[in-house]
């Protein structure tokens, strides 16, 4: 473990945003924004340098304080983590640029929201910390950093619906972290270590481990708005200011997913059963159908987009039943694993780009209209062609039409579904696609329809539209480097691996 190359970047990736966040507190509104935007650009630059470093050197580590695990904490930046960090950086920098223009432009209607920048940089540090962390308890702390800053960002507008949604979100987040932490306590009690790597060697199946897995999974499901616990997401995401909604949807929920993936794959392999995978897949499938249907029924743009997040996260959960092999199948013979992993990564990436773009576009529309009821989107194409194009592109990626990243994800997912013989997930994927096509094209239809008013849209800064469009394009461009990206990820230990199960033992239930 410790013979991997040591690099300072992991520590800097967490330290730098917090440093800038803290520094920004010393300034008033404008200065704070300047420090904030510089901080985001620096962090993004650092993330890209670190990404390049990992592509060259492979996994790098940073032993904090020089104390090796199990006593100390180790930051590990493997290809999987670096892809998530890179994604955060790219999406983050666009959202930062957008926010830099958005908040001054919105000052007249929303008033000043001075704390955006420090909170966002804290959030960024938390996300980087989470992706890098290799320690169960440290993951809890980063989850809390993310949770508090995310909720604080969500309530920035200070309006009562946002506050109410924020409190709901916060309570869900605290409950989730506490459930997670209870699992950590049990794991620490039964193994005496918190380091993921060491845990994977010493963890033994048993009631305690299974229960720990159960509470950890439940906790993380609450945090990532997995199906029965999705109730907090739509109000919280839809009532936040536009750049914040984009951050919450594109990045924050991915954090919990990342931990879930890491823990299931790296740590809890011993106590997973086929049934556990099927159950979590079922939760995902219901989320896909329910979320898409709810999105279809909404009449406010941001609510549509928020419900669509529930559905898109459902696809992520549907990865799990495919990676947990049925009894009797070995990971060597399971040739569907790499498509499924590719599907997972692409779903994460495509959703991050497309959803961020979508929320930014929604922000632009609210700016132009003063509200986001969709019947007022009439003739959007005529008046705001860039935004219309961005919505169209992002929507195409969400539906999963070629040649978008979403298409890559759906293709690989379907392929994995067929190859693994678990064909019963296929109708879910297709129904989800059709339903999402339904709500996306409902928007497009309105966008092309003739307007009933003379000049329905107030002018908005063009740059905002361009940032949203670039993000939407990003959800297409990610397909181009797919081959090298997958090869890069395959050098990560867990990418492409599967959990082999035996017939007996492990938990039988999960909800």
């Amino acid at each position, binding site marked *: 473990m410790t013979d991997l190359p040591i690099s300072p970047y992991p520590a800097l990736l967490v330290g730098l945003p917090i440093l800038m966040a803290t520094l920004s507190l010393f300034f008033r509104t404008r200065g704070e924004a300047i420090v904030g935007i510089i901080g985001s650009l620096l962090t993004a630059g650092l993330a890209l340098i670190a990404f390049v470093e990992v592509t060259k050197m492979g996994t790098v580590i940073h032993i904090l304080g020089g104390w090796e695990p199990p006593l100390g904490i180790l930051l590990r930046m493997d290809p999987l983590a670096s892809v998530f960090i890179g994604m955060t950086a790219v999406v983050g920098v666009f959202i930062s640029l957008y926010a830099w223009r958005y908040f001054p432009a919105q000052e007249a209607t929303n008033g000043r929201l001075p704390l955006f920048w420090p909170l966002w940089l804290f959030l960024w540090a938390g996300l980087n910390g989470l992706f890098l962390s290799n320690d169960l308890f440290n993951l809890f702390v980063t989850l809390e950093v993310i949770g508090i800053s995310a909720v604080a960002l969500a309530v920035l507008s200070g309006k009562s619906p946002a506050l109410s949604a924020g409190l709901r979100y916060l309570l869900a987040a605290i409950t989730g972290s506490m459930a997670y932490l209870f699992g950590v306590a049990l794991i620490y009690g039964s193994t005496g270590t918190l380091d993921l790597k060491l845990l994977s060697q010493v963890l033994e199946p048993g009631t305690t481990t299974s229960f720990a897995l159960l509470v950890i999974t439940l906790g993380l499901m609450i945090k990532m708005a997995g199906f029965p616990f999705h109730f907090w997401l739509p109000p919280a995401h839809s009532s936040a200011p536009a750049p914040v909604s984009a951050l919450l949807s594109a990045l924050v929920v991915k954090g919990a997913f990342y931990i879930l993936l890491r823990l299931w794959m790296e740590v809890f392999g011993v106590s997973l059963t086929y049934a556990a995978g099927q159950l979590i897949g079922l939760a995902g499938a219901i989320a896909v159908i329910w979320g898409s249907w709810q999105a279809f029924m909404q009449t406010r743009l941001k609510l549509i987009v928020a419900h669509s997040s529930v559905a898109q996260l459902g696809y992520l959960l549907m990865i799990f039943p495919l990676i947990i092999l049925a009894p009797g199948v070995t990971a060597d013979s399971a040739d569907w694993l*790499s*498509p499924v992993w*590719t599907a997972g990564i692409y779903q994460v990436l495509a959703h991050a780009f497309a959803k961020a773009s979508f929320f930014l576009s929604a922000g632009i529309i609210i700016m132009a209209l003063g509200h986001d009821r969709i019947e007022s989107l009439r*003739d959007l*194409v*005529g008046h705001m*062609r860039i935004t219309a*194009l961005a919505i169209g592109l992002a929507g*195409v990626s969400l*539906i999963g*039409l*070629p*040649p978008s990243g979403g*298409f*890559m994800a*759906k*293709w*690989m997912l*379907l*392929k994995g579904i*067929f*190859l693994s013989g678990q064909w019963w997930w*296929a109708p879910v994927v*297709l129904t989800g*696609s*059709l339903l999402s*096509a339904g709500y996306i*094209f409902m928007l*497009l*239809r309105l966008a*092309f*329809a*003739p307007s009933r008013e003379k000049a329905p849209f107030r002018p908005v800064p063009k740059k905002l539209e361009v940032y949203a469009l670039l993000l939407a394009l990003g959800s297409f461009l990610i*397909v181009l480097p*797919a*081959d090298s*990206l*997958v090869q890069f990820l395959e050098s990560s230990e867990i990418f492409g691996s599967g959990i082999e199960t035996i017939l007996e033992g492990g938990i039988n239930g999960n909800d």
Partner: protein
Amino acid sequence: METTSFLPLLILISSLIPGILILLLREEQAVLRTFLNIFGAVAKVGLIAWVFAGYLRGEEYTFVFNLALDLTFTLRVDQLGLLFASLSSVLWLVTTLYAIGYLEGGQHRRRFFAFFSFCVTASTGIALSGNVLTFFIFYEFLTLSTYPLVVHRGTDKAVEAGRTYLWYTIGGGTVLFLGVVGLFVVAGPIYFGQTEIIAGLISEYTTQLTILFFLMLTGLAVKAAIFPLHGWLPVSMVAPAPVSALLHAVAVVKAGAFGIVRLVYDVYGIGIAEQMNFLSVLAVFAAFTIIYGSVRALFQDDFKKRLAFSTVSQLSYIALGVAIPGVLTSTGAIVHLVHQGIMKITMFFTAGNIAETYGYHKISQLNGIGRRMPLTMGAFTIAAFGMIGLPPVAGFISKWYLGLGAVEAGSYWVVFVLLVSSALNAAYFLPIVYRAWFCEPEQEVVSQLRSGRLETQALLLIPVVVTGLLSLAAGVFAATAGSPLSIAREIAEKLYLL
């Protein structure tokens, strides 16, 4: 597949880049836009001609880009693809000219021409795609790029038509998606022409491959407008005439028909398809669609609607030709792909010209129009005769080969279908011709578009004359080397030699 060539990619880029550039231009920059359009169209025709020449010399053009795992994006030149690509590029050039004239002074021309270019990019992409994945990518891309064209007018009716169009095509696309992924899983990444893969697997995976065939066929049948999946086509003729021309002749329906040809000939192979009795199902549906479309066309008074139902009927000739195994029917099917395109585009241009010049949309208004627009109606008459199947126009050739092939294959009922449909074709086209030339106009209307000695604008007139002549030439010179027929025949012979 050994040598990588960027030429096929260049063919796509020649319309993609102008499209993107047009989107970036301002609405007022009409001259630059027109230049880009025509430049792209001419470049595309030139490139395809070059590639065609190279191909005839025996060179191979393949462009491969590996997306991820075994997903590869492949463009490859073969005869069938080239035939379709040349058809779309030539007709695109013509339609571009027509559209420039047709939309002069209209709104949102930037958007129109941009998506127009994307649309042609997609259809040449379909033509040149070397494997099922690439085909599917462009197939969906085509759906998306035509949507803004269908709703271009922005009226409630257009938007509603766009919705119908999308539901049909996205639904079809989803079914196709399922089939394509399934095929990938069962047979791996199949390149067109590698029929031996399926042949090797068919005994082991009979059920799966049968299901997948029909899934893909259903997906493709939506665009090919085979009954009962044709509903979008008559509705979406609310679009401007160039778009209808594109939808009905060049791009969308042809993509469906072309896909069926590819599926049967180059993926499953004609032998397997016949052996598994896939084709008889297709034949029955195609035959029914031919009659059904003709009967529906008979009762339309709206000019474009009649043409639309005629398309439904005519397209199924291709499917029918594919469905009856034999060199002659295959030749007929492939050549009809081209012929129907040329003839139908002429007809839509005619309808557009009449509507633009005199504002007539109904057939009952067309009395005596031939005297006022002789060139336009002349072209229409040629095309109509072709559709009915009178020699020496192009349509005759296709029908002849189809009928001959059917006799050869012993499917006499097909001959009967062909005869009935020809009679119906005559029944709904001849009255138009008759009205135009032999009826007295009820009132004299003077069009503002009528400038100088020309019966309408030059840019509207030239395309229709050109395509009218083309459809005549395709029939008259059918026997010469390089004509669509000879190419189609070569393709068909190759198919059956294997």
